[in-house]
């Protein structure tokens, strides 16, 4: 692991994006451009469409109008990591099994060794819990386990939805460091948050309730 070389240059472009949920427009006419090594904060009140925007970018929702393009990446290679409100952890699986599973899903072909898993768990401060079932972890620890996925399989674009929720102060500084490293490696981050990000964002996109 510890792949620290920079990601290839990537440009995320959104053109005239509109999203409707339940027959109501959440936002429309949204355009932005984000280049490698940039952090974009998405702010706005509850219901302004922060999560919907991230889900659009992740390909989990289809835009009602407009389009999203990712320039520079290889066509057949998915580029994004999505960290939503849900941690996607199975209580009955141990942390090691969970990481091994997602590692296999996310990096098709490359086999992960035990030390890869240990390293990823260690880097989010869960090295001691690697053999515990995920069900016994606390909310903050579960959040850290979700973060370990981002480290385990490097991908250039991180879509983070309220990434600081449930994290303690150590967890916050951990995530700050991870985000800093990612930006340093020419990665892109789009983070939806309603509190100030610990790293000053390059651009801020403010959504308003329509």
């Amino acid at each position, binding site marked *: 692991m510890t792949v620290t070389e920079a990601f290839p240059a990537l440009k995320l472009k959104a053109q005239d994006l509109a999203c409707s949920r339940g027959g109501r427009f959440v936002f429309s006419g949204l355009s932005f451009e984000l280049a490698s090594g940039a952090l974009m904060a998405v702010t706005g009140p509850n219901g302004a469409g922060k999560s919907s925007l991230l889900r659009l970018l992740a390909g*989990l929702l289809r835009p009602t109008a407009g389009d999203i393009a990712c320039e520079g990446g290889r066509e057949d290679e998915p580029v994004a990591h999505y960290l939503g409100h849900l941690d996607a952890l199975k209580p009955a*699986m141990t942390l090691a099994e969970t990481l091994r*599973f997602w590692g296999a899903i996310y990096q*098709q072909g490359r086999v992960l060794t035990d030390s890869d898993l240990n390293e990823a768990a260690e880097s989010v401060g869960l090295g001691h819990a690697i053999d515990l079932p995920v069900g016994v972890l606390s909310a903050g620890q579960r959040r850290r386990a979700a973060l370990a996925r981002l480290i385990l399989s490097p991908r250039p674009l991180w879509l983070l939805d309220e990434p600081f929720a449930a994290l303690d102060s150590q967890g916050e500084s951990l995530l700050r460091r991870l985000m800093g490293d990612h930006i340093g490696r020419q990665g892109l981050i789009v983070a939806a948050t309603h509190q100030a990000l610990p790293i000053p964002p390059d651009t801020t996109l403010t959504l308003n309730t329509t």
Partner: protein
Amino acid sequence: MSGFLAIIRQTVRLELRAGGGAAVALIFFLAVVTAVPFGVGPDLKLLARIGPAILWVAALLAALLGLDRLFGADREDGSLDLIIVSGEPLALYALGRAVGHWLATGLPIVVAAPVLGLLLNLDPPAMGAVALTLLAGSPALTLIGTVGAALTAGLPRGGLLIAILVLPLTVPVLIFGVSATTGALSDPEPFLAPFLFLCACSLAALALAPFVAAAALRLALE
């Protein structure tokens, strides 16, 4: 491919561990089969005649158990989102879940069926015939059930709805399964034709069900 295998492995593990559905399906199968002789009464000849049909109906019902968690759990805990973001083909994910579910619930039923045949006064050839036809037909039951599970993934308490959606579609499998078993045991009845139809049901379901399930999962996501 490694992703596909990982999905199968995870499904089997989740089904076998606490809160999984493997034991429930097997116990349900056992309960249905043991209840029938009490209802039918002490007519051993009658039991032996309807035995294969009982085993098949019980296997069909047991195959429907646990399907509601197959995709419902992934949708609720956010795993489905991540699978889609990862770029793993959704049809392959659905197939992996189906294969894992069959290994954990379908295969044990195939193995248990001949043993439970003892309770129904089946003779050894009949036990073998039931196990063989279940082996050929139960993948179809699971795969058709997968489509129902995908369609109801977004619904709370979709379990009963799955049964209503899936049961009519599994009737051909049941008919060919039971007639192939009868064909294997009594001479004038044909065996090969219904057995080949049974295999065809499984193969057709294998070819189609993952794609239909993937489309249904995409719909459930919106």
